């Protein structure tokens, strides 16, 4: 889906390359974390995929297209197959939730009736049902990011790029966002996510590509974030910031309780996913198809048809734990418990 062949990118002549001979191959439907310190080349990687930049050397293939040979008037068509989510959400402040999502379809010339059916669908999927008329500043950070994800996903792109999507969010809200991205990934969408959030990476156990000063230093399937100190040396022992005079690293993190609205959104999204899955299951039972089709239904979670065998995921990977058949409230409780457990583990 995305293939980098010996890609280098030098921004200014003579400067240290932002990417240095990087070769990465991301398969269709994969979920890849891109980790590394600031300036390690994560954002450059994503910009190259979007063809906002062109590589200085090497070749980038995206969705079967050789980007170095893609003429500039075909770039819009490339970008229509890629959704992007940012740390700062980038919503239009004057437009409502619905308009923000619809905007993405309007500007690529989708007919109105398509917009009228697709936008509510995707809003339901991200758990913002009933908040269509809100303006971005009336939403919590987590909800805003859900709008941004809805906008990125509304055109059903093959690839979803996320540049630190949880960077502005508290851990619990982040977890909710991650579950959403995971669900999107299960619809067959390739997800590449640049992040600093070790908790999330460790939790998800997906493929991890670690960049350091422009080179790939690690590429592991089913991996963890790794040594925080080595990836982010600046977060290591910092006597001044952490414990003046003692030189001891303070592990205590700020405790935050998530916004009720975020929890509500998460609940709604879960419920939507469960509903969709139930519908799908019922549909399949009707037709006598005993197969959970993760790729097709797009919502392969929640309760499945009783006779459906648990479909093994393509790669041995663990998603964020989700108890099948749990009610939405239980799910949220589960998330919170899970979150506590992770934190306890980290602090131990």
């Amino acid at each position: 889906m995305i293939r980098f062949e010996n890609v280098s990118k030098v921004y200014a002549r003579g400067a240290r390359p932002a990417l240095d001979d990087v070769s990465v191959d991301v398969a269709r439907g994969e979920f890849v974390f891109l980790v590394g310190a600031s300036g390690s080349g994560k954002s450059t990687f994503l910009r190259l995929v979007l063809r906002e930049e062109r590589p200085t050397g090497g070749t980038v293939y995206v969705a079967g297209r050789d980007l170095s040979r893609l003429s500039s008037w075909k770039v819009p068509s490339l970008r229509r197959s890629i959704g992007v989510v940012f740390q700062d959400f980038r919503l239009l402040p004057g437009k409502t939730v619905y308009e923000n999502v619809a905007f993405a379809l309007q500007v690529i010339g989708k007919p109105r009736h398509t917009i009228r059916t697709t936008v509510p669908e995707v809003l339901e999927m991200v758990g913002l049902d009933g908040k269509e008329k809100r303006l971005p500043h009336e939403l919590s950070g987590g909800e805003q990011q859900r709008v941004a994800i809805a906008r990125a996903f509304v055109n059903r792109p093959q690839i979803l790029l996320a540049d630190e999507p949880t960077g502005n969010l508290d851990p619990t809200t982040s977890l909710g966002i991650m579950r959403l991205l995971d669900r999107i990934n299960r619809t067959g969408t390739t997800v590449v996510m640049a992040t600093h959030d070790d908790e999330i990476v460790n939790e998800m156990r997906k493929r991890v590509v670690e960049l350091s000063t422009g080179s790939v230093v690690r590429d592991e399937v089913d991996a963890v974030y790794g040594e925080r100190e080595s990836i982010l040396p600046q977060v290591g022992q910092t006597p001044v910031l952490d414990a003046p005079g003692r030189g001891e690293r303070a592990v205590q993190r700020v405790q935050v309780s998530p916004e009720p609205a975020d929890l509500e959104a998460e609940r709604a999204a879960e419920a939507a996913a469960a509903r969709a899955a139930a519908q799908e299951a019922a549909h399949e039972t009707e037709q006598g198809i005993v197969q959970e089709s993760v790729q097709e239904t797009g919502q392969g979670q929640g309760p499945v048809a009783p006779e459906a065998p648990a479909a093994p995921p393509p790669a041995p990977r663990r998603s964020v734990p989700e108890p099948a058949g749990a009610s939405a409230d239980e799910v949220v409780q589960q998330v919170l418990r899970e979150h506590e457990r992770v934190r306890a583990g980290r602090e131990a």
Partner: protein
Amino acid sequence: MRLQFVLTEVLQGLRRNLSMVVSVVLVTFVSLTFVGAAALLQTQVTKLKGDWYDLVEVSVFLCPDGSTAPTCADGEATEDQIAGLKKVIDTELSDVVAATYFESKADAFEAFTELYPDGYQGTQLTEDDMQASFRLKLVDPEQYQVVDDVLEGRAGVEVVEDQREVFEPLFLALGRASLLAAGLAGVMLLAAVLLITTTIRLSAVSRRRETGIMRLVGASNLFVQLPFMLEGAIAALVGALLAVGGLWLAVQYLVTDWLQDSVDWVAYVDVGDVLFVAPLLIGIAVLLAVVSSVVTLNRYTRV
């Protein structure tokens, strides 16, 4: 859908920088009024030429008695010389001359006494004071030079005169006025281009967030840029329409209603001519807007 969306964007953009849009409208209005005025002056000159040149002739004055011109050394033009000149006019100048009329001294005296029955400035003149001449009506009055080349310097010809010279000062004045108007129009058009560029840039920068998202979700270049182009084009178009309206009023009230009444023997420009100039003005306005927006947008909203 697309159209409606684009139009909404355009309206929003126009509302957002209303003052800039108004200034674009005014500057294009003034500059195109100058362009139109220059064009109308030129039309006026052409009209006058067409009207008056039909009336003018080339006069070939023949040698009178006692002329000091070198070709008149032999004294008054003889019958032979006159016949010879007539022949030259009929053969060599047959393409240029539409009609030839010979005015003898007697004819000239008759015309003179008709014009000044009491003598000229108190002097009673006789037929011998008159001068015989050929009056040539040219197919194209501009071809005076050809006639002059052929006849000037022949024996018996004192001087070849072009009556057009009478009008030259007027035409010169009108020509200079239209040149001045065109010059001012040029300066104003430059100002208009710069202003349109600035307005579009302002609009593009103030909507950078929108265009950024449009590019990310894969809107085509045209779709991103069209609203800005239309904004500039609409402002310029309104300016052009105002200019056409202004010229219409000026021609209607100043020329048709007032000048025509006081000096009625001249053919003037009329509102029909304004309509003829209108497409030119509108074309210039749209061209200005498109050129300046393409230049600006390539710098500010490139994919």
